[in-house]
């Protein structure tokens, strides 16, 4: 079977699965940024929280993803919908790099700059939004980039609980011992990961403050 034949037979299906995959990843990233960046700020502000918060995120990272999905399946509200539980599980994995990079970025802001800001009468809030976050944005973005690439990969497992995405092809291909089918899932996932990595690194470079 030629590539063209394969694509004409599965093309629309691949496109649909890719869209679904992107949706799962996008929702995960929005959620994990919304949770991870504030947690990172908290860790930078209260260093004693660093151990419990980063430790928990670290432990989450070590749970096998299939096991985590299986476990979430049994949790009442969460397990009711496949996409819901998938996004929750993916978010847990995406948190660590985001929290860690946010905390590192903020901690790396020159203390003289922070002191000057306080001395000029900026409030803590103004210091955060006008000084600390703008100065650490490229580090935070680097964390988001790592998390995105990671999530695109892990999201292929979502098919195991019926959340769809490119994993569908991989699982089907495995079951049918059909290599082209496996590739139909794996190649678009790899392309997505590379594209996300490239675009986010461009953004990261653009937003890096001059030194």
């Amino acid at each position, binding site marked *: 079977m030629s590539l063209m034949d394969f694509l004409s037979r599965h093309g629309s299906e691949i496109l649909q699965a890719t869209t679904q995959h992107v949706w799962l990843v996008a929702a995960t990233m929005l959620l994990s940024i919304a949770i991870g960046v504030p947690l990172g700020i908290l860790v930078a502000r209260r260093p004693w929280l660093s151990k419990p918060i980063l430790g928990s995120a670290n432990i989450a990272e070590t749970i096998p993803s299939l096991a985590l999905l299986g476990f979430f399946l049994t949790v009442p509200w969460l397990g009711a919908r496949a996409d819901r539980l998938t996004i929750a599980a993916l978010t847990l994995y995406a948190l660590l790099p985001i929290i860690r990079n946010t905390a590192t970025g903020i901690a790396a802001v020159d203390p003289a700059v922070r002191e000057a800001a306080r001395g*000029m*009468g900026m409030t803590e809030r103004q210091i955060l939004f006008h000084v600390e976050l703008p100065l650490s944005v490229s580090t935070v973005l680097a964390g988001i980039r790592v998390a995105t690439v990671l999530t695109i990969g892990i999201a292929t497992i979502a098919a195991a609980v019926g959340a769809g995405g490119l994993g569908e092809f991989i699982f089907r291909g495995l079951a049918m011992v059909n290599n082209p089918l496996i590739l139909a899932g794996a190649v678009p996932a790899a392309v997505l990961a590379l594209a996300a990595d490239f675009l986010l690194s461009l953004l990261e470079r653009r937003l890096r403050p001059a030194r």
Partner: protein
Amino acid sequence: MSAHSEASPQRDAIIEFRDAAYRLENGQLLLSRINLTVRRGETLVLLGRSGAGKTTALKLINRLLDPTEGEVRVEGCRTTEWNPIDLRRHIGYVIQETGLFPHYTVEQNISIVPRLEQWPRERARARARELLALTGLDPNLFLSRYPHELSGGQRQRVGVARALAADPPILLMDEPFGALDPLTRAEIRGEFQALQRRLGKTIVIVTHDTNEALLLGTRIGLVEAGELKGMYSPHEFMRSNEPVAAAYAAQLRVFNGI
């Protein structure tokens, strides 16, 4: 009462330390029960070694620290009664490393306090131009540059311009010229002296440089190991018998022999 009767020191005082001490939580005493008065319009230099407690004293004035004993008064009010934000906007602050925001242009850096105070953009811009010219930098050349595009001396000038932006009556300077090479340092110091005469601000400078203290200070407060050893006019300082002051004076005389 005659019209030009000498104002009482109390009325003239803009900053007062009353038995002000600062102790770390681990019990270490950084500053012990200091009493001093800064008069309106004068330039007080706190001279002392690194770690003597000068910077701590400075930070008690703009409430970056609160005294653990005694009190510090600014414009007659205890610093702890001031809203820290209002107090700090009332006081310009210049530090050695300048603390310029690396992601802001020179103009944005100078306009930080005016923008926080909701000045219209045009007024803030005009003020930034005026201040750059005042500190000896060509506004057309420097307004849109970033701090990393400036030399150390230029950065320090912008730091001073930024502290003066909202025209605060008080200026605190922590080793303002410390990071500069000797020639630039002498140059900027000289300009600053002229600026000081023109502006008539109340200035408190922290330094470990005797030359700087003698040149810029109308009075010199000698700080050693967390204590205020004495207050002198530059003239008195050079003739003081106080051992630490005498040591500083002697260190200067070494060079007169060359």
